[in-house]
C-alpha cells in the first residue's frame, strides 16, 4: 500500500517537472548537443554534402586570426565592464539607500537605462558619439579638445562601447544591491556605530560581506552579459573598424548568418559554451566558501 503510494508520488513528481523539462530540452540541451555534432562536420552546400571532418573546424579556429582578436577584445570588454559596473552599482545603491530628498526620483533616473530597449539605447549613444556634432565632441570643443571619431577609430571604439555598457548595466545591478541593502537590519549598522566604527569600517566589515550573495549573483550576470553583447554592435559599429569592436557572439553571428558557415559557427559556439561553463563553475565553488548566506 505505502509502496504504491510512494510510486504514485514519484509519478506526480515527474509530471510536475515535465513541462519545464520539455522546454529546457527542446530549447537548451538539444541545441547544445546538436551544435556540438554540427561542429564536427564540414559545411554542406547544394553540390557538396557535408561530411564528417572531426576536429578540423577547431583546427581552423586555432589558426583564425580574427577569432583570437575577437577573443582578446572580449576579454578587454569583460575586464572593462564587469568590475566598473559592479563598483558603480554598489556606490549608487548605497547613495540612493540613504535618506536623501527626491530619493524616488534619483532611483528611477538610475534605473532608466535598464528599462530602455537596447536599440533605443544604442541610438542615443550613436548621437553622443557622432564626430563634430555629437554630445561628447560638442562638450569637448567647449574645453578646446579636438574632435574624435569615437566609433571609427580602432583605438577608441572598444572603450566607447565599454563606457556605454557600464552606463546601461550599472543601473540594473544597482537595483539588486538596493534590494539587498534594504533587507539588512539598520540595527546592525547602529550596533557597529555605537562601538565607534567608522562608516568605512562598517562598510568593509559588515555591509560588504553581507552583500556577497548579491555580488556573486551580479557578477555572474555581468560575465554572461559580457559575452552576450551583440545588439549594440549592430547599430553602432558592426564590429568595425577592422574587427576592433567585434566580440565573440557578434563574430559567431557574422560567421553563421553573413558568411553562412554553419559548421565553423558551431565550433565557435561550443568554445563559448565551454568557457562560460568553466567560469560559472569557478565562480560558484570559489565564492561559495566565502559567502555568508542567511
Amino acid at each position, binding site marked *: 500500500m505505502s509502496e504504491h503510494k510512494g510510486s504514485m508520488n514519484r509519478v506526480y513528481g515527474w509530471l510536475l517537472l515535465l513541462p519545464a523539462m520539455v522546454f529546457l530540452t527542446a530549447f537548451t540541451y538539444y541545441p547544445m548537443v546538436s551544435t556540438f555534432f554540427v561542429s564536427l562536420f564540414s559545411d554542406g552546400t547544394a553540390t557538396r554534402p557535408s561530411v564528417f571532418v572531426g576536429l578540423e573546424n577547431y583546427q581552423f579556429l586555432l589558426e583564425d586570426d580574427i577569432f583570437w582578436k575577437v577573443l582578446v577584445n572580449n576579454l578587454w570588454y569583460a575586464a572593462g565592464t564587469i568590475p566598473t559596473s559592479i563598483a558603480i552599482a554598489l556606490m549608487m545603491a548605497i547613495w540612493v539607500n540613504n535618506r536623501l530628498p527626491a530619493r524616488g526620483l534619483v532611483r528611477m533616473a538610475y534605473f532608466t537605462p535598464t528599462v530602455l530597449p537596447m536599440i533605443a539605447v544604442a541610438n542615443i549613444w550613436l548621437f553622443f558619439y557622432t564626430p563634430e556634432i555629437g554630445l561628447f565632441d560638442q562638450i569637448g570643443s567647449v574645453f578646446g579638445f579636438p574632435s574624435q571619431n569615437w566609433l571609427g577609430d580602432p583605438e577608441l571604439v572598444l572603450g566607447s562601447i565599454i563606457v556605454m555598457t557600464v552606463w546601461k548595466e550599472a543601473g540594473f545591478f544597482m537595483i539588486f544591491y538596493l534590494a539587498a541593502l534594504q533587507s539588512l537590519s539598520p*540595527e546592525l549598522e547602529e550596533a557597529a556605530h*555605537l*562601538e565607534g566604527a567608522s562608516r568605512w569600517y562598517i562598510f568593509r566589515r559588515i555591509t560588504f560581506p553581507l552583500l556577497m550573495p548579491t555580488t556573486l549573483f551580479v557578477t555572474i550576470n555581468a560575465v554572461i552579459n559580457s559575452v552576450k553583447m551583440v545588439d549594440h554592435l549592430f547599430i553602432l559599429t558592426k564590429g568595425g573598424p577592422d574587427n576592433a569592436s567585434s566580440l565573440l557572439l557578434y563574430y559567431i553571428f557574422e560567421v553563421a548568418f553573413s558568411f553562412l558557415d554553419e559548421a565553423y559557427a558551431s565550433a565557435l559556439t561550443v568554445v563559448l559554451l565551454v568557457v562560460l561553463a568553466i567560469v560559472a563553475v569557478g565562480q560558484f565553488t570559489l565564492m561559495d566558501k566565502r559567502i555568508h548566506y542567511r
Partner: protein
Amino acid sequence: MSAIELKNITKKWGDVTAVDNISLSVDEGSFVVLLGPSGCGKSTTLRMIAGLDTASSGTISIAGKDVTSLPPAARKISMVFQSYALFPHLSVAENIIFGLKVRKVPAPIRQKRLEKVVDIVGLAGLTDRKPSQLSGGQRQRVALARAIIAENGICLMDEPLSNLDAKLRHDMRVEIRALQQRLGMTVIYVTHDQAEAMSMADKVILLRDGHIEQVGTPEGLYGKPETLFTASFIGTPPMNLVELANGPEGAVVLGGSDHVVFKGPGEGRVLGVRPEDISLSDDSGLLVELTAADYLGADTILNAPVGNQIIQIRVPGRYRLGEKNRVHLTWPQEAVHIFEKASGKKIENSNITTGKVGNAA
C-alpha cells in the same frame, strides 16, 4: 551625581510628538526600567540616550557631562537591541570583540576579556559558531556579552527578552538582574511587560503617550498608584476599577446593590481595589453573583459582574463555582484607592468623605 540625567527632553517626528518634555535621572549602579504600552516613546527615549536619535529639545548628560550633541560612540554606553543585532556573518567570538577591534585593543587583552565574558554569560564552547547556529537564548547571551565586554558601566536594553519564550524569559530576567548587580552596571531597561519591570527594577518609570505617568519603586507603583492609568497597568490581573454612583447614604458601585463603599459622593469617581485585597463574606459587603472561575494553580481568579462592570477577586487555592455563587465582597479600607474619573487622578483619603465631586487633590 546621577549616571544619566535627562532634562526636558522632547522628540518630534514631524507632527507626532513621540516624547514630550521628559525629565528623569538614573543613579549609578541602579536598574531603571522604562515601562509603558507599545508606542509610548520608550524606544525613542532610549535611542536618544544612546545618541542614535537626536532630541528635538532638552539636554542629556552622562556622568555629569552634557552629551546631547555627542555621537553615540563618544557616550561610552553599550546597548542590547530587541533583535540582538548580531552580525550574522561573524562568529560568536568576533561578534563579542567587535567593539574592541574597532577601538584597536591589542589582541592578547581582547582574548582575555573575551574569555572572561564568555564565562560570565555562559557561552563557553560556542564561540566559534555563527549566530544562526545558536538558539534564541544563546543569541541573547551573545548580545549581552557584547554589551558588557566594553566595560562601559552603562548598558541600555530595548525589550531584550521579547523574542524569547515564556520560560526562558523568566530565567533570563533573573540572570540579567544578577549580572547587573554583580558587575555594578547602570542599566536602563525598556519593556512593555509590567511583570518584567516589577521583578527587575530598582526604579520604574512608567510612560504614557510620551510623558512620564509615575516614577517609583515597584512597590510604590503597585501600592500607591497616583493615576487610573498606573492602577490599570500594574499587576496581573490589574486593579479593579469600578465606577461609583451617589447612593442615599454614600457612594455605591454603579449598577450594584445599595452597599455603601464609603461615605461621600460617588458620582464621577472610580473605586480601585486589587483582586487580592478582596475577600468573600457570607453576610456583609457588596452582594454579587460569581460567574466565572479561572484556576491558576496557587489561586483562582473569580469574576463577579456588577452592572456592566466586572470585579475580579483572587482567592487562594481552588474555588469551584456552583457551590456558592451568591457572595458578599469585602475589603479593608486601607486597600481602597479612589480616583477622579475625569482627570484620572487619585483623590487623597482626607478628601474622600468630605470633598465634593471634582474637588480632587
